[in-house]
């Protein structure tokens, strides 16, 4: 996750409290999604950004995960994400996200 976005997530978490923040990711691969999810839970795994060593433990979901899909308007989801849902390897993304959440999420 780039340094700017790390800073945004950190600032929002300070402003609203970690229990009120949910991060939604759109990375195209499980590995990239996992790195971003790890960044907002256990801290920046590259140790380069503002979240290096900062364990926010936020709730984090990928836009193709069923739990996110069920929570949003089906029409909008189809319009905006439907196409990507067809081409992405949803299973591996879901399993990576579950791993990260169960290991590092505090909420």
């Amino acid at each position, binding site marked *: 996750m780039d*340094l700017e976005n790390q800073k945004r997530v950190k600032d929002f978490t300070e402003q609203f409290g970690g229990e009120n923040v949910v991060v939604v990711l759109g990375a195209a691969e499980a590995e990239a999604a996992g*790195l971003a999810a790890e960044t907002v839970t256990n801290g920046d795994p590259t140790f*380069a950004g503002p979240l*290096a060593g900062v364990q926010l433990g936020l709730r984090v979901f990928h836009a193709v995960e069923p739990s996110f899909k069920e929570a949003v308007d089906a029409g909008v989801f189809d319009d905006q994400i439907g196409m990507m849902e067809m081409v992405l390897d949803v299973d591996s993304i879901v399993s990576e996200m579950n791993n990260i959440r169960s290991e590092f999420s505090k909420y």
Partner: protein
Amino acid sequence: MSKRVVHYINQFFAGIGGEEKADIKPEVREGVVGPGMALNTALGQEAEIVATIICGDSYFNENLEEAKATVLDMVKKYNPDLFIAGPAFNAGRYGVACGTIATAVKEELNIPVLTGMYIENPGADMFKKHVYIIETGNSAAAMRTAVPAMSKLALKLLKGEAIGEPKEDNYISRGIRKNFFANERGSKRAVDMLLKKIKGEAFETEYPMPDFDRVEPNPAVVDLSKAKVALVTSGGIVPKHNPDKIESSSASKYGKYDISNFMELTSEDHETAHGGYDPVYANIDPDRVLPVDVLRDLEKEGKIGELHKYFYTTVGNGTSVGNSKGFAAEFAKELKADGVQAVILTST
């Protein structure tokens, strides 16, 4: 008392900024910064990072002697037992900086040093003979495997333990040979290896051939005023909107574009697809990376015969040596077939 470690990182890993901050001068901070946090944890009770030195990659490489002397002084003040630089992964200038400063610390202060790089980092080839370089993945995402490997070797160096073979301790082979008694004589080992090879099984050579990448210079162009000259770039210049979608890093392809109707390149018609550096000035005037304007002048003045109709382009950012060689092998044939006698290669 735990051993003292000084750590060197660049502006990016210090969280100061990317390319736009690469010209910052060396500075020192007490304790850990960035990846030092992970290293310090992995080193445990036995060693502690007492200070972190930060320097911009451009600054270091453009002011080599001065930067080296300044950083050496900073390291000296902390009287460390070990010096760690990086890891630099596949960042070229960072790798060269890590290798340079680690070598200098080792030679001047006579303490153990280590760094970490991706095998294709230019710094790896330059410094693998001088210092231990842990072999890492090619991006910072590999930090989680780089840190344990680096701290393991760091602790061994600190305790003065014997360092294993490159594979055992995950460092890039330094080309050092050591005598030892083998269980079987050479002829038997050679035949065993040959049998494995014939059967198509995996075998391991006892004497890996060095991987030389030397390019013999071609003979000079006899008469430039009659030569057809082509432009080739790894600076990512493409027609506006990047029609072939050449990737901004780790390019998997190159482009071939017609410039016969261009007297120069402008922001209207061309741009750069290259990531990893500030593209503003290349986008304002793409001639800065691919000098079509100057070559047209030389053409008019009769200094060169003509500028080739096509230019070839890719993005050098993180692109593997393997891919680059593949691209060049392909288009070099076309260039030859088109009667091009000289090529000017430009980068970012």
